[in-house]
């Protein structure tokens, strides 16, 4: 599997500029007056971005990196749109992934597949460790 150096370094630049964009967002985070304190949410944005970007920093497959870039971009866009930096957690109650043969089964793989793109780093009930 040959990967061109140019694509890796341009991906690297995109990743770093995404990280920079998120940190700039955290600087000017407006918060929701009366509901959410801007300083707390800005701190959350910084720790979340730091944790998630560092978790995946040794990835090498460009397709996987591309899907993580898409995850970051969708989280940025959702945060900007709703003014809420936290991801909307999926609700997968028992039986929601039922098939005719397996009416009650909820497999880990099924739940992972059901996650939206912006939750890619939160697989199988996994929450990133906050440092």
């Amino acid at each position, binding site marked *: 599997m040959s990967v061109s150096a140019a694509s890796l370094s341009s991906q690297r*630049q995109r990743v*770093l500029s995404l*990280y*920079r964009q998120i940190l*700039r967002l955290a*600087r000017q985070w407006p918060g929701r007056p009366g509901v959410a304190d801007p300083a707390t949410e800005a701190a959350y944005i910084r720790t979340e971005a730091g944790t998630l970007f*560092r978790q995946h920093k040794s990835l090498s497959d460009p397709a996987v990196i591309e899907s993580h870039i898409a995850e970051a971009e969708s989280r940025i866009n959702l945060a900007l749109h709703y003014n809420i930096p936290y991801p909307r957690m999926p609700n997968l109650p028992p039986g929601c992934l039922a098939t005719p043969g397996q009416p009650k089964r909820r497999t880990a793989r099924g739940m992972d597949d059901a996650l939206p793109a912006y939750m890619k780093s939160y697989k199988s009930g996994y929450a990133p460790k906050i440092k």
Partner: protein
Amino acid sequence: MLGICRTKASLTLQRLAKLNSFRALSSFTVVPKFALPSSNKHISTLSGISQHAIQRCSQWRCYASASSAGLSQDKITERVMTVIKLFEKISAEKLTIESHFMKELGLDSLDHVELLMAIEDEFGFEIPDQDAEKLNKPSDIIKYLCEKMEDRQYVCM
């Protein structure tokens, strides 16, 4: 060293004076700081002078006083090194002006981004991406900041 700021201010005011026959202004070379607000009032009552030109004069005035307030090369060096020392991922013993962030101080590229954000916060302006990837040592940062300050009519001594 402050000659650049004052010459430009005086040239603009001379041009303004010629445009509007305000002879009192046309022969000065140095405008004391307290004199400018009152002469602003005279200027603004004359027709044809843009508010923009007056604002630019008072901006030059501000820059002239700010260059004594900590933008010489030594002061910039001091501020940059303080910011870098406060960054918790860098050990202060290994830090020198020429130490490379990634190779000698062991930062990764994400830490580098965070460090440059801290410097942007300190100095109050944004560093674009293409410039940011070249700033790998404290001396690079100091040189870059001096150039940027010169562009904005601060003076680096």
